[in-house]
């Protein structure tokens, strides 16, 4: 690992200033991505700014939204009573991710910014990676692709965004609060991520000296039902091959409101607007669900190793729509 300077920031403005002063500096929060990739030599920041002591640890309910500090851990958010009562989909997505040890370390801000698990990205001895070296190509497209993306993917890059939490949060239209050198701004999570077919080297709209300070989650209407289904190679402690976050408001067999997002298949957490459009106002039937799932996956871009994900993601979404609606016919 390359040597680095370690600085512990004590307030948010100071952290932003330290970042602005050094274009190569990186933040350190839970460290579960940052230190891992530094050990692999993928990231080599000359300076780490430890932000874990910043006052961004609170969870606060204000009216019908939940404000979550960026440094709240995954375990802390999963244990929150409002999350348990009003955001079961968020709770499920958290508890189905990683292990307890990692969830005690990983922060909500860091989870949103986690880097891909693509083995070619994570191996600096592989020369072709448009994320690490723009213009160099993509080794995964010709390689052993399995844990890779099919939506927002192209021959330029098929790196998967592996967060479960972010899938639930894009479905819920969560907002990201950001502080930068010239002030603060709020970005909808659905507009926060860029797709790898457009910009493999740039994954979010976050600028270098900007810091996520928190996430705001609008609470669903009390009548909403929701759930998160994760399909993977083993029962626990594994990344998704496909996952679906679904929230429905039903009235006498008709879908009044639908929120749908997919994980395990996108170069970003994938909000399925096409599915929502087809579901809204339609009868809650398996035929409707199938149509919505087909519409979501019709733009998939696959390589031989990832082709299985198209039917898998369709079935995953249909299954979760059935589970949440209680309709299996």
């Amino acid at each position, binding site marked *: 690992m390359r*040597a*680095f300077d370690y600085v512990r920031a004590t307030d948010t403005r100071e952290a932003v200033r330290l970042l602005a002063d050094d274009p190569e500096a990186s933040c350190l929060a839970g*460290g579960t991505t940052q230190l891992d990739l530094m050990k*692999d030599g993928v990231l080599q920041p*000359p300076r780490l700014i430890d932000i874990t002591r910043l006052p961004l640890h609170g969870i606060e309910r204000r009216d019908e939204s939940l404000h979550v500090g960026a440094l709240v851990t995954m375990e802390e958010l999963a244990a929150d009573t409002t999350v348990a009562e009003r955001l079961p989909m968020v709770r499920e997505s958290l508890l189905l991710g990683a292990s307890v*040890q990692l969830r*005690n*370390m990983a922060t909500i801000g860091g989870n949103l910014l986690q880097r891909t698990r693509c083995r070619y990205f994570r191996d600096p001895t592989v020369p072709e990676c448009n994320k690490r070296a723009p213009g160099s190509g993509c080794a995964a497209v010709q390689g052993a692709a399995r844990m890779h993306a099919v939506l927002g993917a192209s021959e330029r890059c098929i790196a998967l965004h592996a967060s479960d939490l972010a899938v639930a949060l894009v479905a819920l239209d969560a907002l990201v609060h950001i502080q930068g050198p010239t002030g603060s701004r709020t970005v909808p999570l659905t507009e926060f991520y860029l797709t790898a077919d457009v910009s493999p080297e740039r994954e979010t709209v976050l600028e270098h000296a900007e810091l996520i300070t928190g996430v705001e989650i609008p609470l669903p209407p009390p009548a909403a039902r929701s759930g998160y289904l994760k399909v993977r190679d083993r029962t626990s402690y594994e990344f998704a091959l496909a996952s679906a976050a679904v929230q429905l408001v039903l009235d006498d067999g008709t879908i009044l409101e639908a929120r749908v997002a997919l994980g395990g298949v996108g170069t970003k957490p994938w909000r399925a607007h096409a599915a929502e459009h087809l579901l809204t106002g339609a009868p809650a039937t398996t035929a409707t669900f199938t149509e919505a799932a087909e519409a979501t996956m019709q733009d998939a871009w696959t390589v031989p190793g990832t082709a299985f994900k198209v039917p898998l993601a369709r079935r995953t979404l249909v299954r979760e729509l059935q589970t949440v609606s209680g309709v299996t016919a």
Partner: protein
Amino acid sequence: MTRVTNASRRDTDDLPAVIERVVTLTVNGRPHTLRLDTRVTLLDALRDRLGLTGTKKGCDQGACGACTVHLDGRRVLACLTLAAQAEGRDVTTIEGVSGTDGHPHPVQQAFMEHDGFQCGFCTPGQIMSAMALMAEGRTGSDEEIREFMSGNLCRCGAYPNIVAAIREAAARGGHDARL
């Protein structure tokens, strides 16, 4: 408290080989002040500088759980925690869990009685994780134990006996496990 050896990094293409920092770690209730390379993880500080080799280095990339320790009472992975990040926090390792009388912790006792290991390499991490599991109240069923112990891998496959040990420790009132 960061000391840069060699030339300032901004004066050369390469960074200095070593950037050091004085770090005070509180481990098993005792403070230790060390001068450490900033790259040193909590795991390496425990093993190589403090001689506390009970915490094991398995994968060193956050996948196996062998390095599980408690930080302020919560289980974390020492391999993905910088020693500097643990400053001001209470670190508990496997060396710190037995009673002052030298008797094993009830979870350690249960692992011995149920043969909850074969080679033993993952065992300190399993025990640190199991103690935290009980404090978290996640021992309601074998299924729950398995799910919330899934971050600790055992290459020998001693899982059935590990689950049996935890089940019994919890039944004996292990919620009072010292953390």
